[in-house]
C-alpha cells in the first residue's frame, strides 16, 4: 500500500525521487569527465600552470 506525504504518517523515509537519481548520475558523470580531462592534461587543466615561474603569476605592467 502506498502512502503520500499528505496521507498517513510514514514509519520509514520516503523513497528517492527519480529526478534525484537522474541528477545524481549526471553529476557523477560530470565530475568524472572533468577529472579525466584534467588528469589527461589536454591543454586546459586548472593546475597545469602551477609550475610556472613566479614572475608569470601576475599580470605584467604595460
Amino acid at each position, binding site marked *: 500500500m502506498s502512502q503520500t*506525504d499528505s496521507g498517513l*504518517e*510514514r514509519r520509514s*523515509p*520516503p523513497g*528517492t*525521487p527519480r*529526478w*534525484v537519481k537522474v*541528477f545524481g548520475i549526471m*553529476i557523477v558523470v*560530470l*565530475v568524472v569527465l*572533468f577529472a579525466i580531462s584534467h588528469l589527461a592534461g589536454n*591543454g*586546459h*587543466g*586548472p*593546475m*597545469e*600552470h*602551477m609550475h*610556472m615561474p613566479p614572475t*608569470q*603569476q*601576475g*599580470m*605584467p605592467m*604595460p
Partner: protein
Amino acid sequence: MTPGLRKFALSIHLTASVGWIGAVIAYLALGITAMTSQDSQTLRAAWFSMQLIGWDVIVPLAVTSLVTGIIMSLGTAWGLFRHYWVLFSLVLTIFAVVVLLQHMQDVNYYAAIAIGTPAATTGGLRGELLHASLGLLVLLVIQVLNIYKPRGMTAYGWRKQQEQRAGRTASGAAVGEGS
C-alpha cells in the same frame, strides 16, 4: 531569521546568483570575440578584460552567492541537507566555485602571455570557452532547481520533520492538559 532579514539575504543571494550568470555570459562574449579575431590588439584586450571580469566580478559574485545561499538555507525551514534540490544546488555551487578559483590561475597565465608578448596567440582560448560554457550550464541548472524546487526530502530531512511533528504534538498535548 526574521522576515525582514530573510528578504534582505534573499535579495543579495538573487542579485549575486543572477549577476554571476550574466558575468559569465559577458566573459564568454569576450572569449568568442578573441577566438574569432585575427587582431592581436583585440586578443590582448580580450584577455585583459577576461582577467579583470574574472577576478573583480565573477569571483566575488560566486563567493557571495555561495555564502548567502548557505545562510539562506540554514536560516529558513529549507535547511541545508533536508531537501534534494538544496543539496544539489549546494554541491554544484561548491563545485563551480572550486573550479572557478583554480581556473583563474590559468587565466592569469594566459593573460600575462597575451599582454606581455608582442604576438599574442589564441592559445588557451578553446579551454577558456569550454570551461566558461560548462560553468554557465551548471549555473543554469542551479537556477532552474532553485526556481522549480522539485519535491524530494532526504532521509535526514524526513527525520527532522518527524522530530518537529512529535515535538509539536507533545507541546500541544501539554497545553491541552494545562488548560
